[in-house]
């Protein structure tokens, strides 16, 4: 695998290989010496054109646990913010000998352009591009679901028949898109719930069922309820009237939490707007996998970096 740009491009075999290797990476994180020599001598650049401390740190920890050298390149205060183009930045990285580039960018497709324009030889990992995809988030979400369901027996297993309901701003969510392709690939049944203004036009051929009613979706007793972050500012573009109505209709309130089976996982990619799309009680309940998701993020990202950079195709 040369690049990881989207989950839509993964085969089932590739997805399972990444998840299974992540199991072994998770073991390393449980040891006293949390380090492997596997990517020693490799240089990985975190190229973040959008602010994101959490994801960037997750990738940095992952790279360092594999003994790679890490260079952080964030947009603020760098030549990028002074108008240096993606192409020029890429050519600088190439000249510096970067082996892998982890890129987060506000424009959908920027990682694809970086990977295919012929500017660099490095492997490219998409850490989130515009509203397009965030493949490592989907992979860590799938890993989390698998672990919660099968524990130590997770290796080699897919998510056949697991019912996952994703709620919130699907239209603007790269996490939603990546999750939809990956969950469907692994055999899960995906349902979307959102107001019509936040569902894209043209999802007729997506492998999902879509609806507007969260109470009905809760009544179906899904195995996983994935809440997406909604930006309150969207109300100014008339996507919904305001936070109060959004929360009432599509928020995971205490009342809805009580109606969910105890076994339902409550997931959230973070950062959470407590009180808007998810109540504080729901966020902190035993059903919540939010902290697992963060921990698993490092293991999954170690696995991704390994698959991209360790073998001969890199």
């Amino acid at each position: 695998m040369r690049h990881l740009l989207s989950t839509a491009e993964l085969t089932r075999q590739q997805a399972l290989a990444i998840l299974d290797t992540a199991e072994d990476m998770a073991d390393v994180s449980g040891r006293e010496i949390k380090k492997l020599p596997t990517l020693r001598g490799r240089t990985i650049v975190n190229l973040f054109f959008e602010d994101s401390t959490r994801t960037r740190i997750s990738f940095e920890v992952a790279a360092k646990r594999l003994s790679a050298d890490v260079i952080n390149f964030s947009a603020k205060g760098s030549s990028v913010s002074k108008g240096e183009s993606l192409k020029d930045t890429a050519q600088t990285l190439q000249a510096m000998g970067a082996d892998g580039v982890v890129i987060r960018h506000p424009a959908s497709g920027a990682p694809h352009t970086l990977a295919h324009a012929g500017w660099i030889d490095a492997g490219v990992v998409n850490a989130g591009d515009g509203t397009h995809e965030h493949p490592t988030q989907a992979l860590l979400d799938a890993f989390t679901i698998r672990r919660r369901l099968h524990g130590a027996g997770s290796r080699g297993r897919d998510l056949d028949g697991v019912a996952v309901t994703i709620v919130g701003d699907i239209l603007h969510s790269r996490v939603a898109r990546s999750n939809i392709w990956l969950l469907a690939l692994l055999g899960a049944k995906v349902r979307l719930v959102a107001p019509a203004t936040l569902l894209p036009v043209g999802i007729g051929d997506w492998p999902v069922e879509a609806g507007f009613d969260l109470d009905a979706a809760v009544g179906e007793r899904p195995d996983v309820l994935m809440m997406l972050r909604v930006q309150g500012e969207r109300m100014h573009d008339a996507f919904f009237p305001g936070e109060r109505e959004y929360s009432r209709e599509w928020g995971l309130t205490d009342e809805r939490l009580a109606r969910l089976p105890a076994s339902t996982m409550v997931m959230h990619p973070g950062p959470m707007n407590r009180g808007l799309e998810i109540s504080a009680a729901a966020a902190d309940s035993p059903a919540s996998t939010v902290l697992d998701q963060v921990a698993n993020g490092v293991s999954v990202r170690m696995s991704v970096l390994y698959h991209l950079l360790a073998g001969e195709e890199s």
Partner: protein
Amino acid sequence: MTTLIKGTTLPNGSRADLAIEHGVFVDAAGVTADRTIDASGLIALPGLVDLHTHLREPGFEQSETVLTGTRAAAAGGYTAVFAMANTQPVQDTAGVVEQVQALGERAGYATVRPIGAVTVGLKGERLAEIGAMAASRAQVRVFSDDGMCVHDPLLMRRALEYVSTFGGVVAQHAQDPRLTEDAQMNEGVVSARLGLAGWPAVAEESIIARDVLLAEHVGARLHVCHVSTAGAVEVIRWAKARGIRVTAEATPHHLLLTEELAEGYDARFKVNPPLRTAEDVEALRAGLADGTIDIVATDHAPHPAEAKECAWGEAANGMVGLESALSVVHAAMVDTGLLGWADVARVMSRTPARIGGLRGYGDAFALGTPAHLALYDPAAHTTFSADSLHGRSTNSPYLGRELPGRVVHVFHGGVATVLDGELRPAEEVSR
């Protein structure tokens, strides 16, 4: 210099000889030629007229100049181009339009007719000095804020009325700005998957529907730029049936290319209005064939490499199209049996000239008329490449693509601008 063109095929299919002397067509019989061109196998078309070109000068000379843009035009068989007003400074005064016209005259490759802005600075607030531009040496008759939509309904009404005062026409770039804020590509199945903000068809159709009704109400002419959707074709068909004086253009790229090309995020395919669906392409072709769409216009939009070699969201909208236009129309309309060569002459020369008020293109090859002529080899095949481009910019969606036909010789007012597929040098062509 007397030129004899032997054995060419006219648009109606008959074989003929043509002769050019002192800049006009003369009787070929008994002419003593200084230069003889063997044109057997070549189709003679009246010089093509582009009602929608961006020459970028003044202000954006790094993308194109009047000289380089008209060279590109000549290479594509064009002998006249209407230059859009979104220059810097904007073509909203007599001074700027006269300057652009003069640059075109000096270059000599094609007749340049500047288009005047509808509003000052294209800001959509106040009418520009339309009367002054109409009366200037540039004799402007086509007015457009292209790039921007005249979206305020009252202002559009006033513009239609005021421009008709001077015998002109408003050419509207139909795009409701509120429905297309930061839009990147056609709104639909592909945009949903790619996570690119959508540009819905209704944002074009709703403006056209409003404008044709306004034009009807005030009894003015209206021209619709770069029609791109099936729904827009329907609206225009309806309007014409009611007797509304609306004309419409389609670009070559909207007759051939579809939105799936965005899937590689290659910004050479980013354009406004965006590439649409296969159904839209079908409807546009049918509309051009049945006369609902009156003409082909290139919307030649040069951009420097750095405006395209970047992430899609940061890239500029637009494609160059003068050199490829005839070949693309050949592929999309002639090879599919929808148009014959006489129709091509109509939609790419005679009708655009009529809409723009350009004289000398009424009666093709009539004796005594200016010798604007393009000789085209329909049997040739080329792989379109950067060598096929003659302007300053290379943002063409056809690079690497097989296209039919080849422009071989072009005469602008009797002066050869292209011979044997090569542009003539500037010193030779310049006036």
